[in-house]
């Protein structure tokens, strides 16, 4: 043990060991520093030790979480884990996190409009959300209800955050070929990954439950506070184990692609659930005064938050209800049992990750409906080409879906939320006779997001095709892409909403729906004109917020204006028909000659090679500190770093 301690040194775990001044980043021509080498001078013996090694021990104190972990070294060793190696892997992982593009809150930032682009900043968001737990905790001593509800919220938040932001850590494949090919046991690696994730989860839950913990200490005393903290800790462990098991099950039956899809959809569902959840928080306080009586039911045994409610009820309120006693025992026992089982099964977990590397099925040879439609909706051959290209690109792009599908979800849900809101105090008959169907304009809200996102791609490096192939007509590129976006993203949502609205409001609104559709198309053109034009799928996804999100807010007023105009038109005889005529004319102009004219004025035949070099190189390859604040000529802020699936963490020690 002591010998191993010596081997695994504590050295390079400072956040940034070398000041950038003495360690210049590689310049544009990375191959340049090449000294003439002679074969004779090679060999591991002839090493000349360089004296000017920067002192590495000086920052050591800045990294404390790991020394905290050292107290439990014995525990890990007993579980068959090589603790010094695990510690070294963790140190390297945290070091790397400190350099990555962080977006733990980023996945929600687009939706909720919060600019948390650092992990620590995102903790504030969790802390703020944690405030809504305070009333739940302090409102009484009905722990069965209060604690269960609070824990339910915490569990949901933590589990979804784990799946959406930290899956990449658990499923990292590089670890296999880099670490497992070295003399490291699989369980040591899995343990390192687990602790890595646990570190973040504890910080998130710390922020999320912090306010309510303090409130709990004050309101219910120390016993409550300590029990609360203790249970939260074990909940975190349980969440990790459950997630790992979920992955194991999915991997058992499906391949890695399927698992990635499932994670993707969970992420999307999370973003939607969060935004919709905000709408209901206000209402929650309306029934806070209600005295909720607890009635046991069998399914409550399946809900860990209820177990925790029970343990509070039993320990602090002295309940001797046998059902609650059993649940309390579950709360105390299951997480421990789960962790023990997980420790046993850690080898299996690493092994099953092998399946992630296997390629999926062959795919089908069908060209799909988009291929046939491209001829119908596009005028030129080139336009049809880019229409199909865009359709194919967004079909499989998970990062694109992650950023865009939530707004599709809002478009589907918000009209109903607003209709429900407006329903208060009026009858169903009044609603169906009213004009709340105009909330269908909410679908237009997705347009700015789509336009903002269509320039990004994880395979942005493929964009050299714009430069290498004789693409002459930029208007065709953009128009084809825009049409594909409309067809793939707007049309399905719009059709679905229209169908539901036709059932609710009757066929009298058919004309209005048509007007709304063309209004939305027009709005797309307006957004396109306002936002800067970059080649589709040519830039890496960026972390945090886009500089242009500033333009999003005024654009949403455009949606309101459109809806208002439509409302006004319905008050005038033949107003809707007139609006349709105007909108059709404008559409024809803006999608037709106006489109080309606008593009010609905005893009004076871009030097594609230069453009691509600019949009691809500087950002992703060099250290992000330098490029962070550069802006290109059109005020478009260069995305400073690329955001891959695994680039979601930020660690400040």
């Amino acid at each position, binding site marked *: 043990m002591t010998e191993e301690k*010596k*081997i*695994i*040194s504590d*050295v*390079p775990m400072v956040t940034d*060991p*070398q000041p950038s001044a*003495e*360690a*210049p*980043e*590689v310049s544009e021509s*990375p*191959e340049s*520093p*090449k*000294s003439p*080498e002679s*074969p004779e*001078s*090679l*060999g*591991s013996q*002839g*090493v*000349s*030790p*360089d004296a000017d*090694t*920067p002192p590495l021990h000086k920052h050591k104190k800045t990294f404390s979480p790991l020394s905290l972990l050292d107290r439990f070294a014995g525990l890990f060793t007993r579980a068959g884990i090589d603790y010094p*190696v695990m510690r*070294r*892997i963790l140190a*390297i992982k945290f*070091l*790397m996190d400190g*350099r*990555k593009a962080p977006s733990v809150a980023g996945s929600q930032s687009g939706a909720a409009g919060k600019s948390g682009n650092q992990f620590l900043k995102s903790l504030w968001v969790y802390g703020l959300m944690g405030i809504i737990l305070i009333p739940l905790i302090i409102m009484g001593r009905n722990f069965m209800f209060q604690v269960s509800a609070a824990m339910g919220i915490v569990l949901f938040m933590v589990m979804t955050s784990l799946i959406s932001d930290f899956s990449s850590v658990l499923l990292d*494949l*590089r670890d*296999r*070929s*880099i*670490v*497992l*090919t*070295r*003399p*490291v*046991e699989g369980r040591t690696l899995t343990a390192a990954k687990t602790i890595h994730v646990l570190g973040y989860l504890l910080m998130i839950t710390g922020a999320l439950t912090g306010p309510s913990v303090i409130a709990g200490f004050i309101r219910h005393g120390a016993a409550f506070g300590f029990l609360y903290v203790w249970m939260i800790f074990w909940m975190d462990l349980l969440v990790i184990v459950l997630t790992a098991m979920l992955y194991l099950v999915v991997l058992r039956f499906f391949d890695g692609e399927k698992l990635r899809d499932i994670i993707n959809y969970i992420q999307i569902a999370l973003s939607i659930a969060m935004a919709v959840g905000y709408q209901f928080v206000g209402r929650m306080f309306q029934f806070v005064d209600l005295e909720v009586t607890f009635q046991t039911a069998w399914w409550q045994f399946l809900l860990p938050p209820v177990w925790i409610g029970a343990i509070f009820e039993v320990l602090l309120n002295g309940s001797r209800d046998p059902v609650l006693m059993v649940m309390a025992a579950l709360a105390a026992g299951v997480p421990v049992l789960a962790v023990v089982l997980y420790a046993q099964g850690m080898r299996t977990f690493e*092994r099953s990750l*092998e399946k992630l590397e*296997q390629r999926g099925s062959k795919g089908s040879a069908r060209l799909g409906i988009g291929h046939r439609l491209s001829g119908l909706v596009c005028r030129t051959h080139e336009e049809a080409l880019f229409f199909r290209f865009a359709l194919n690109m967004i079909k499989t792009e998970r990062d694109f879906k992650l950023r865009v599908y939530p707004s599709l979800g809002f478009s589907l849900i918000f009209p109903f939320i607003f209709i429900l809101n407006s329903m208060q105090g009026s009858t169903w008959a009044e609603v169906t006779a009213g004009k709340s169907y105009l909330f269908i304009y909410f679908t237009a809200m997705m347009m700015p997001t789509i336009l903002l996102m269509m320039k990004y791609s994880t395979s942005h490096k493929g964009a050299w095709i714009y430069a290498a192939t004789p693409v002459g007509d930029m208007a065709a590129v953009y128009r084809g892409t825009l049409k594909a976006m409309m067809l793939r993203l707007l049309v399905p949502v719009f059709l679905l909403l229209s169908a539901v609205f036709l059932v609710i409001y009757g066929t009298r609104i058919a004309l209005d729906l048509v007007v709304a559709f063309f209004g939305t198309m027009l709005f797309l053109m307006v957004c396109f004109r306002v936002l800067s034009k970059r080649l589709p799928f040519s830039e890496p996804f960026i972390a945090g917020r886009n500089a242009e999100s500033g333009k999003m807010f005024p654009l949403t007023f455009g949606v309101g204006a459109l809806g208002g105009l439509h409302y006004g038109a319905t008050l005038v005889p033949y107003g809707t028909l007139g609006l349709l005529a105007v909108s059709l004319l404008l559409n024809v102009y803006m999608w037709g000659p106006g489109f080309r004219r606008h593009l010609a004025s905005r893009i004076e035949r871009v030097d594609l090679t230069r453009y691509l070099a600019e949009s691809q190189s500087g950002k*992703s*390859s*060099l*250290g992000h500190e330098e490029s962070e604040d550069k802006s290109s000529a059109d005020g478009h802020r260069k995305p400073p770093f690329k955001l891959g699936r695994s680039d979601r963490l930020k660690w400040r020690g």
Partner: protein
Amino acid sequence: MLTQATPQTVLTLKNLKMNFGAKEVLKGVDLEAGRGEIIGYIGPNGAGKSTTVKIMLGLIEGYSGTVEILGEDIRNAGVGYKRHIGYVPETADLYDNLTAREYLTFIGELYGMTFEDADQKAQGLIELFGLKDVYNSRMTSFSKGMRQKVLLIASILHDPEILFLDEPLSGLDANSVMIVKELLEALARAGKTIFYSSHIMDVVEKISHRIVLLDGGHIVANGTFEDLKTLNHEGSLEAIFNQLTGFDTQSKTANQIMQIIQGVTRDD
């Protein structure tokens, strides 16, 4: 066949079989390797080369047959045997947001070296590979060749007995290729065993002491280049490879390709 009994065997595969679901990837591979041997391990895509290497590295379990490395059956051996193995993966995986120094010392320590020892060796090697100026730079900015050099250094840093190299020359410039070739010779002279996987037949032909050709999960040839030449009456390893893997339609295929690109289209 041409299996040679080598004086000091460091690696033995006996009837190695592996299935992925219903797909049989290895159908009974028997192989021995001795000290100081450079084995060119070749075969068409999907022949099972990287599966074999992954099994030997302990990345894949669930195989049947035995794998002995340095006299130990790796199934029961724990991970200690990996201390004596160096590996250059084909996928060129590395933690590229680390600096070369951070990465190499990390790998060295995983192999059980001290930080100081790993740092000193890594610094010396990086200098010899012409990367001295970027030792403290993050590898995100490295070119493919520079990354490959780092991977090579990571594989030899701990002075291993056995090296598994998968396309180790990929991305290297001509001068660096020469260094690596010389280095492989030197390593072999020092008694190291090298498993050299590549699709570039000319290089395999020149540097390998023995060539093992895997096709469809079987070893279809195993011997020196001279052995293979006399047995197969072909002049180059490339030709032998074609012959043994039953591929002789290259000129026909090339002609068909020409036909297609010049517009003699198939009817859709």
